[in-house]
């Protein structure tokens, strides 16, 4: 790992918080920052996640104080107060989140104090300090959720034993977050559970407001959303489990067993859901079987993505698709503990199919390390990974080209696809992923 980060595959804390707020229906951000911050974050979110677009109150519509030198010198609090006031009078939303950029955090504006004036009047305003230098989008997701959980979620509500909160998929950082959450909710609903996904186009702030009723929080990530889940537990007594993003029948079955084990879900109901969903998946695979075998569509796989996808994709490739995972790169900025957690996840994959796993943020270094590895395995005939396939971000297209590999962009940034309701999580997501991957291999026919 180097001192700097090459073409970062994540945004800053502000970017993560902004994408999170803009994913909630009828929520609006009030960005207290220099004029380019919101647009820059939004530009990255939309270009990097399959053209998400401005939506309801995002993009250039994002309320922003656009502070300049004057505020840097004299403080930006009165400008923020003016901006909150005017935003409340013009923008039609149910929840407003004041989030900040580097400058306002450095000069030390008392944003919490300014927001408190509005909170006292009963305005639905939350506030979080999300200056970009505090970390990546993952940090922003944690900080804004912490603010929502402590300032917005109602306290003291009775528990609903069938209600589950899902955390751990960062909007736009998980390019397919909407589809994934919708698919997981669908499957869990079949188990008789109610699910708060918070961040799909169908989630309004009231689901957040009442989220303390949940009996369990499921964090779909070893890294993202962990802190938010802990805050949920501390403040509202909602326990949490970590169950990594499941893709395809093998992982999703394990996911359902784990969640059901913590809630009042009968074994019979669980078995039935697994059977039905599995049957759905294989009803389509039955018809894929011809071409998969006739054309020898098995590949060596190189997988590049954040801590959620690097493992989830590798597991799917190994256990469901029956490919050979060769090399997996985890691109998040992780501390040692987090790295250990991710490493131990890979131990769930049978030893003979376990890929080489590296932790590396920089695209060129991932390519260099793969190249070095391949050189050490060289033979007179062909590349050790031929025939190869790369699942990564659009940045990894070059690596795929160099290795004459098939290529599908799945992890942030994805600039060469339009993403709407596609899901890769769950059973239907598994079918979708098989379809998308194999379609690449058929595209010249």
């Amino acid at each position, binding site marked *: 790992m180097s*001192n700097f980060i090459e073409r*970062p595959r994540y945004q800053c804390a502000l970017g993560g918080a902004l994408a999170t707020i803009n994913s909630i229906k009828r929520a609006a951000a009030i960005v207290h920052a220099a004029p380019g911050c919101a647009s820059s974050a939004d530009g990255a979110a939309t*270009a990097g996640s399959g053209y998400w677009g401005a939506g309801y109150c995002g993009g250039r519509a994002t309320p*922003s*104080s656009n502070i300049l030198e004057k505020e840097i010198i004299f403080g930006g609090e009165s400008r923020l107060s003016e901006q909150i006031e005017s935003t409340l009078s013009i923008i*039609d939303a149910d929840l407003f989140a004041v989030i900040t950029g*580097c400058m306002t955090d450095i000069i030390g504006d008392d944003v919490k104090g300014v927001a408190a004036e509005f909170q006292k009047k009963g305005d639905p305003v939350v506030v979080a300090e999300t*200056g970009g*230098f505090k970390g990546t989008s993952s940090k922003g997701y944690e900080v804004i959720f912490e603010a929502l959980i402590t300032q917005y979620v109602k306290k003291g509500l009775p528990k609903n034993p069938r209600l589950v909160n899902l955390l751990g998929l960062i909007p736009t950082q998980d390019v397919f977050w909407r589809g994934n959450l919708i698919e997981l909710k669908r499957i869990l609903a079949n188990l008789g559970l109610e699910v708060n996904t918070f961040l799909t186009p169908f989630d309004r702030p009231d689901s957040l407001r009442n989220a303390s009723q949940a009996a369990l929080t499921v964090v779909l990530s070893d890294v993202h959303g962990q802190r938010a889940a802990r805050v949920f537990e501390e403040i509202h007594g909602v326990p949490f489990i970590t169950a990594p993003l499941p893709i395809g029948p093998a992982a999703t079955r394990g996911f359902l067993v784990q969640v059901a084990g913590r809630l009042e879900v009968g074994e019979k109901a669980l078995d039935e859901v697994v059977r039905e969903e599995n049957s759905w998946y294989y009803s389509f695979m039955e018809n894929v079987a011809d071409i998969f075998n006739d054309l020898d569509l098995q590949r060596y796989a190189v997988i590049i993505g954040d801590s959620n996808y690097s493992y989830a994709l590798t597991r799917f490739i190994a256990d469901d698709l029956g490919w050979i995972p060769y090399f997996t790169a985890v691109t998040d900025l992780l501390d040692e503990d987090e790295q250990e957690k991710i490493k131990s996840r890979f131990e769930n994959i049978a030893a003979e199919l376990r890929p080489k796993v590296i932790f590396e943020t920089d695209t060129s270094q991932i390519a260099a390390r793969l190249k070095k590895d391949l050189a050490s395995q060289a033979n007179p005939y062909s590349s050790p990974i031929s025939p190869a396939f790369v699942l990564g971000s659009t940045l990894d297209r*070059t690596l795929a080209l160099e290795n004459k590999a098939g290529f599908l962009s799945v992890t942030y940034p994805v600039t060469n696809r339009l993403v709407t309701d596609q899901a890769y999580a769950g059973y239907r997501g598994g079918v979708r992923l098989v379809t998308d991957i194999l379609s690449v291999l058929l595209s010249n026919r």
Partner: protein
Amino acid sequence: MSLLEDKVVPGREERAGACMAYGGTACGLGQADGACLKNQNRSFSQSGLCMALPVMGMLLTLPDTAVVIHGAIGCGSTGFGMNINNRLRQLQRGNLNARDGFWVSTNLTESEVIHGGEVKLEQTIYDTYKRFHPKSLIVLQTCAPSIIGDDLASVISRAREKLDIPVLAANCEGFKTKIWATGYDVAFHAIVHGFIESDKEGRPPRKQRRKEGERPQVNIINLASVGQPDEEEITRMLDAIGIDAYIGPNYGTRESIRNMTQADLTVSVCPTHDDYFVDYLQQEYGIPSVLKDMPIGLANTKSWLLDIAGHFGLETRAKAFIEEETAKVLEAVAVFRQVLEGKRVFLSAGEFRALVTGSLFQELGMEVVGVRSYHHDNFGRDYYDKLVEAQQGKDFAVDIANFQPFELTNLLRRIQPDIFIGHISDNVWAAKLGLPVATIFRIFDYYVGYRGFYEVAKKAARVLRNPAFNRNLAKNVDNPYKQEWYEENPFKYIKSGEVSSSVKAASQPEIELQKGAVQ
């Protein structure tokens, strides 16, 4: 001061009297006091843009360059968006193995904000050089390192000594100016100082006078958002009157950029984009310039071409060419003119481009009913009147806004134009109101010259033929504004800022807009 002498590029507020908040009409703007306009602000605002974005957009186009963004990890995250255009431009130029642009972030963290980021920056520069062996290296200074006092200038001067490639420096702290077009100046400043003034070989000598009979060589200043089609049309037009076009500095190499000092004339296609650089070439190399029109629309193309031809005594040839091309294109657009005649158009883009595109539509028999310009400066001052005159004195709404779609949405609901012409990122707001939209300044389309005249007319007519996507959208999605907002003056939130004691604050300009159209 000038590009050569400025250590740090001044904001456009200072240099060009630019403002970014005005609401009213074209005639009203003409009478407004520039000093007052400059100080106008908004008490409600939506996200603007900072100069780091245009700077990175321009400098990432330099081939085999590495950009070091000194700042927090999110600054430069729009690199992915810029990289898309960059790749597509390479493909357009026939390079099938288009390379991704290369940038790194110094990832300034909490600890560096406290202890300073200079050491990290310096190390990043040398590591980046070692890792990629770029042909040039560019450092972008963002807000945070600037405010904690990182000394960019000394880091750069050491790097220039140690590295054998041009090192460019760009101070583009977003909080320093409200006019992001300042970023164009910053990029030109970085290019000139990196490739010419501080280059190892020193600046190229002044060129000898062009010999009798030699074809003139003319610099055409391009924009990162001008595509191959427009470059081809420019080259074709100039070639036809006997002039060689030399297009840069975007996408240019060190050598080709240095060679721009050897031209016989510098021609701008967008004065508000180019003047800082054009003035440099004029002052330091004695290269005269054409800096008043944009070759969009027939009249503008004509005067642009005649101005250029006039520098070389080629007017006769130019006139013949213009006459022939005009006749040809008028015949070709006749079929679209039937559809477009009498239609009411609203335009939104950078000021100069919005205005000249308005002229183009007037030439197709349409009426300009509104213009939203990203900022207003000296270059656009007289053009509003020109548009009003061209439509027999019919005034139109003007919104000077660094985006601010809340004003635009309010205005469009009142005005109900037949078609909206908008720059990328503007169009969705018109789309949500169900208006037919023709996007402008995509790199795949023609806008300039005769081909541009034809293609823009064709596109507008095509869009009007089936606006079903947007019409349906409007019935099914909402805008984020309260109903009351549409009853308010669209410019309610524009306020006069602090003005120096000698200047009286301007009162809110009166607007007369049709209210009947509000649904």
